[in-house]
């Protein structure tokens, strides 16, 4: 923010230029005229993205609020239902997302030091790791459908024994609410992952075309913020959904 005052004089001078002829009057072609400097432009982008992420915090916050209310109402259902989730798959996905956050932050760093090759490679790694997460999630959902753990008219919790016979499971009252929240929270999280992968694909194409440099990489930076935010949501979903009944043994 230091240059807000020092940049005022030059900024004012810039504003007197006609909006044509970028690059001819000594500033970066990616600097828009309503900013004093590239630094201020990046600060504004970052701040704007965080304001959006705060709305996302409140969006997921409402779901976590519902989770807290129903967990206090049906503590037993929460523990018993949690045992039906697959801790290995959930834990693997947590690790996969943490790895994707590392590749994302390395992508931003590559952009900062002007390494186009590093940027492209890191973005591809991030997209691949995000896709691995969704594939694991698909198999998790598939197993939940197969075991009748979808709330609603088809709610019929059961396990399949080795000889193929069905074994009904009696889950405590409130378990359907647990699974409703499980599907809504992980489903909306997965939707955010899909959007994130789409964003990263756009950033990847822009990177490959050489649209970013050490001076201008704002889209990489703020898409990265989004990606990390989605990672944070999962960091909370994993213990709150998967680990509640882990000490009683995992059956999922």
């Amino acid at each position, binding site marked *: 923010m230091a240059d807000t005052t020092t940049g005022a004089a030059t900024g004012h001078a810039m504003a007197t230029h006609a909006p044509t002829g970028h690059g001819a009057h000594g500033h970066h072609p990616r600097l828009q005229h309503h900013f004093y400097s590239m630094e201020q432009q990046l600060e504004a982008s970052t701040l704007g993205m*965080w304001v959006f992420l705060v709305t996302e915090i409140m969006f997921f916050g409402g779901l976590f609020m519902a989770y807290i209310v129903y967990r*206090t109402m049906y503590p037993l259902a929460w523990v018993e239902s949690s045992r039906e989730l697959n801790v290995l798959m959930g834990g693997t996905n947590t690790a996969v997302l943490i790895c994707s956050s590392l590749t994302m932050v390395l992508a931003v760093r590559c952009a900062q030091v002007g390494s186009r090759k590093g940027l492209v490679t890191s973005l591809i790694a991030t997209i691949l790791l995000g896709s691995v997460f969704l594939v694991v999630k698909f198999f998790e959902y598939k197993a939940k459908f197969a075991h009748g753990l979808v709330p609603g008219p088809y709610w019929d919790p059961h396990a399949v024994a080795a000889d193929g016979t069905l074994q009904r499971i009696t889950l405590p009252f409130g378990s359907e609410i647990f699974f409703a929240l499980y599907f809504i929270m992980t489903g909306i999280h997965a939707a955010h992952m899909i959007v994130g992968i789409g964003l990263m694909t756009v950033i990847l194409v822009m990177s490959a075309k050489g649209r970013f440099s050490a001076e201008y990489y704002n889209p990489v930076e703020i898409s990265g*913020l989004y990606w990390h935010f989605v990672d944070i949501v999962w960091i909370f979903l*994993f*213990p709150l959904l998967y680990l509640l009944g882990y000490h009683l043994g995992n059956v999922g």
Partner: protein
Amino acid sequence: MSTAHIVPVRTYVAVWVTLLVLTLTTSWAASYDFGFLNTAIALGIAVTKASLVVIFFMGVRYNTPLTKVVVVAGFFWLFILFGLGMSDYMTRDWIGVPGR
């Protein structure tokens, strides 16, 4: 050159290793029955992990004071939601009003 703060790769790798270790720790801790402490441990580790991501990966440490205020305010408002929400639900049966 940009004046962006360039963080050494080893810092990011150290944060990444810490996050993976904490993931294993939270899973390991959840396999024991500590009573109500299970939730406290799980949330403590999750908050630590989230803070590491926000401070280092999202780079809030190197952002302007204004951005920092917005970030803190966002999480502060979340606690207002939880605080006021639960102060409603947890006190509903304190007085025997039919239909609550």
